[in-house]
């Protein structure tokens, strides 16, 4: 019987071709939804086989070219990311199935590229050895490029910038896998895992740097993070939310696979940097700490809603990597769970923002305000999303962040805990700015007749927010999925129950925490309704303005530069070193280009010929004898 993995890949291929061909007609969205739903079902079946004791589900697909064998199989880790991919694809297609799609210029390309991305990611996560990993990696980065460059103009430049970063990363990765091959004789994971402990430290360091850099570009770890925000923001709605939710996490999959599963955190910890307390693992940990803080405070300063959320995507990536690199089962479970949680609330947030853009034609936070009365359900989605993004109790974001903090506490790393907490504070500030500038405050004159987003857009958003809430209340559901992934990594599982995690020195039971919170809010509601007279709702113009009469032609609203005090304190800290480094690199290439172009135009070839001959003979005469 044809294996599960093969059916999955074939189905993904058929969806890609089918959606590209039938992308234009009205039911393309529904076809996509059905296809991605089927894929998700298959992935769940794979999950069952895996949880039933199988280490991996093999695929019949295998080639050997020029003596290099390539195999494909999906293990627990790959399965977890495959589930995220097909899930995100399903919600993106659902969002595209309704009214939102009619307004889009190039429906076929959007549907086609979304399906192509899902196919590419499934290929990547089911790679069996380094060569298929590299091939999958390349196809994923090119599929993402195709998706980003649809709208042309700023999108095209952002996509080109992404492409150069991705290619540089891919070349580093290419060098990495070739060094692996020359060091261990083959591309297989098992051989590398066996051989790596006794490799010379120099090759170990080279491999570590190359793999971290190669995968780090896609994960947008700090030095390589400049491309992600504009590239993800200028992509059209549903695809942008798909990219935000899942695309950057492919980097995390690969990093986890190589650094944790194959090399192992102990080995990384062993690779000390001379004359410092740091070793490979702690150096990377501090890089993720910076990745948590710097992008979050850049997000704080954004005035475009999509850019703000995209910058947060980079910050949240730092949390996941932090959890995974801590190395304890609790930290690993926290990191992987955060990947799942992040996918749910980030997609809900992006879909909500694009619903607002769909209705008000702008994502600029200074042009919006007071939409809560016009778009209440979008408001609810955004509210649940930001509670998740900020990591506050009722939502799932809190559970994974708590596990990461607890693992940091148990391994006695206070400074990292402080860095993570500073990142969370920055997130809380910027998400409040997001929801305040769009939904709260005075409604603008031109938005008086704005209607609520259509049902076809609301349902996916609310379902995602619902998933976030349910997995927040009962994290056990998500943790069981994380177990399958963690079992493949060989670090050991983190025992958990439906409500959360029980540890000797401080446990978390979300059933009680969220249960009591909801009950307490119920008590608050009772107090509100029974103690005190009935409420009387007044218009936004019946407001205290120091005795001044408010009227619609004067905008009585505070949203521009929302944190002036903070901006004055941390404003000077934004020196944009990384931006300067990037521009420096560009000018270096341009100068080299001018130089070599000049050489070709400087003189005619015979002159060079004579110079070359004379120098060559001189060289031969002097050095040839040795």
């Amino acid at each position, binding site marked *: 019987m044809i294996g599960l993995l093969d059916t999955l890949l074939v189905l993904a291929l058929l969806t890609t071709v089918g959606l590209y061909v039938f992308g234009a007609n009205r039911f393309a969205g529904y076809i996509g939804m059905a296809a991605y739903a089927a894929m998700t079902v298959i992935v769940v079946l794979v999950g069952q086989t895996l949880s039933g004791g199988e280490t991996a589900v093999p695929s019949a697909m295998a*080639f*050997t*070219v*020029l*003596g*290099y064998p390539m195999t494909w199989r999906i293990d627990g880790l790959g399965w977890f990311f495959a589930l995220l991919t097909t899930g995100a694809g399903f919600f993106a297609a659902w969002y595209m199935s309704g009214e939102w799609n009619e307004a889009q210029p190039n429906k076929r390309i959007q549907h086609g590229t979304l399906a192509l991305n899902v196919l590419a990611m499934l290929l990547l996560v089911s790679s069996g050895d380094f060569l298929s990993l*590299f*091939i999958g990696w*390349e*196809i994923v980065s*090119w599929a993402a490029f195709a998706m980003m*460059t649809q709208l*042309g*103009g700023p999108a*095209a*430049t952002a*996509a*080109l910038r992404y*492409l*150069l970063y991705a*290619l*540089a990363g891919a*070349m*580093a990765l*290419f*060098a990495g896998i*070739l*060094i692996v*091959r*020359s060091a261990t004789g083959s591309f297989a994971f098992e051989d590398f895992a066996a051989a790596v402990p006794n490799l010379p430290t120099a090759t170990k360091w080279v491999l570590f740097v190359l793999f971290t850099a190669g995968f780090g570009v896609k994960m947008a770890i700090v030095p390589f993070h400049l491309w992600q925000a504009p590239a993800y923001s200028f992509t059209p709605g549903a695809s942008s939310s798909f990219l935000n939710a899942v695309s950057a996490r492919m980097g995390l999959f690969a990093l986890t696979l190589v650094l944790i599963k194959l090399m192992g955190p102990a080995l990384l910890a062993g690779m000390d940097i001379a004359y410092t307390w740091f070793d490979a693992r702690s150096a990377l940990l501090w890089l993720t700490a910076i990745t948590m803080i710097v992008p979050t405070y850049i997000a704080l300063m954004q005035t475009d809603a999509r850019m703000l959320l995209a910058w947060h995507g980079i910050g949240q990536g730092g949390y996941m990597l932090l959890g995974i690199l801590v190395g304890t089962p609790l930290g690993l479970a926290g990191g992987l769970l955060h990947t799942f949680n992040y996918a749910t609330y980030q997609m809900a947030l992006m879909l909500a923002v694009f619903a607002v853009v769909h209705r008000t034609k702008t994502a600029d936070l200074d042009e919006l305000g007071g939409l809560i009365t016009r778009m209440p359900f979008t408001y609810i989605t955004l509210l649940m999303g930001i509670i998740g993004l900020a990591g506050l109790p009722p939502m799932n974001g809190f559970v994974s962040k708590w596990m990461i903090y607890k693992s940091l506490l148990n391994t006695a790393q206070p400074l990292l805990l402080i860095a993570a907490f500073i990142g969370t504070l920055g997130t809380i500030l910027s998400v409040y700015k997001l929801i305040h500038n769009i939904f709260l405050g005075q409604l603008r004159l031109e938005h008086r007749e704005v209607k609520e987003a259509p049902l076809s857009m609301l349902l996916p958003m609310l379902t995602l927010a619902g998933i976030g809430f349910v997995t927040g209340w009962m994290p056990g559901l998500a943790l069981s999925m994380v177990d399958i992934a963690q079992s493949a990594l060989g670090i050991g599982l983190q025992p958990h129950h439906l409500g959360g995690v029980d540890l000797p020195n401080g446990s978390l039971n979300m059933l009680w925490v969220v249960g009591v919170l909801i009950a307490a809010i119920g008590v608050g509601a009772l107090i509100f309704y029974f103690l005190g007279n009935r409420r009387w709702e007044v218009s936004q113009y019946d407001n205290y303005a120091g005795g001044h009469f408010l009227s619609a032609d004067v905008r009585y609203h505070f949203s521009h530069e929302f944190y002036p005090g903070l901006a004055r304190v941390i404003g000077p800290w934004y020196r944009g070193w990384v931006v300067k480094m990037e521009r420096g690199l560009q000018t270096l*290439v*341009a100068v*080299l*280009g*001018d*130089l*070599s*172009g000049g*050489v*070709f*135009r400087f*003189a*005619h*070839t*015979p002159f*060079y*010929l004579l*110079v*070359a*001959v004379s120098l*060559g*003979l001189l*060289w*031969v*005469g002097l*050095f*040839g*004898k*040795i």
Partner: protein
Amino acid sequence: MTSGANTLVLPIVLPLLGAFLLPLVARFGDGLARALGIVLVVVNIFLGWTLWSAVGTEAAVTALGGFEAPLGIVLYGDRLAALFVAVLAVGALIFWPRAEHGGVKAYTLTLLLVAGGSGLVLSGDLFNIFVFYEIVAVASYGLAASSGDKAGFGAALRYLVLGALGSSLVLIGIGLVYAAAGTLNLADIARLAPEKLSGTTGLAAFLLLVLGFGVKAELFPVNTWVPEVYAAAPMRVTAILAGVVSKLAMVVILRLLVLVFHDPAAISLLMAVAIVTIVAGEFAAYRASDLNRTFAYSSIAQLGLVALALTIPATAGILAAIAVALHHAVVKPAFFVIAAKWRGPLAGLAGGARVAPAAAGLFVLLALSIIGIPPLPGFWAKLVLLGGAFDAGGAYAFAAAVVLAATVVEAAYLFRVVARIWQPAAGAKPAHFAFSDLSPALLLGVILIVATLFVAPIGTALSGAAASAADAGSYVARVLPGRM
């Protein structure tokens, strides 16, 4: 083995004969001359194919005029030679000059080119290689000037002067070898080389030969003619020159490296030259102003890649060299076909996708393959090249790092153009492609896709050819039986 021997000389003789007969036939009608030329080229392809299939691991050797090895001129036809004879003929066929490109004169020169090229690859005698190198050079000067305008003549003249100087260097080199080894037969030289050509004379000879052949093989110091000639020459000539002819010079260098020069200093010299060629080619392409120049510099870089592959020890190097050379022979001419219509500054290309979607799609496919994106063949060529480099370690690893960095720059300037093509047209739209203009490029595109699907069998075949080419011992034994 002997039956195959005398067919060895046919790929050289038939086109040569055709070249001389063509002006006479042209009297009876231009179309007839063109048909005859095409027939001869097809025959050459067939001969190449028969040689490839006839020759297993054991190469076919013919002593011209019956004179035995060390004294007589010998033709050595192994799989490598057969491959390049076939590739040269196919290239000539696809880019056979049109009637308006100088008619009979162009046909004769192309046939001359094919003859010289085949001879260059097949001959086992050093001086014989020089003779065929001169024939190829002369033919390419003529073809380069065939565009008929002032720029074409100027470029061709400068190319002639440079070619002459290059050939003279080769001659001096051969003289040195002859003085030291006393013989001109490659197998014989190979046998005597360890003690005769080990010192500075060997090194000097190597330097001169490499620089001489480097002119045609577009190695660094001597390739400044490339952008000028490729821009001035007509598209079909540029395609043949860039695609195939420059590879032939590389084959000669390959033969020399395998058989004669094993001195590590020589190898490091060639690697240095190769690296500089790649870097110069890629960065110059980054600043090139129009499409044609970009591809000219890009072909320089790719040739540098082949040279780098040659320096890699053992069969891995040879296989990588052949793979990259073949891939470049397929991709670059197609690029030049597109560049022929899309002239002028890069900014003017905006809106190209709407005007000529086929050309734009082909451009992306070719760009993807030349950068080395799986599953396209470009990737496997790079994989073999870099795999060999990293295996060799040390300086080769540094060279591989340079190649990887150069690839990113290559992607930058290629996809800058792709992004431009897909943007809506600002001012004037770029030219539209008629099917006849684009047909050679589409054919090459199809070849590329076919190669992608059958990359495994092609890989094994090429590695077999590389193994036999790299085996100096069997070459000497084959040519000089019993005279080890």
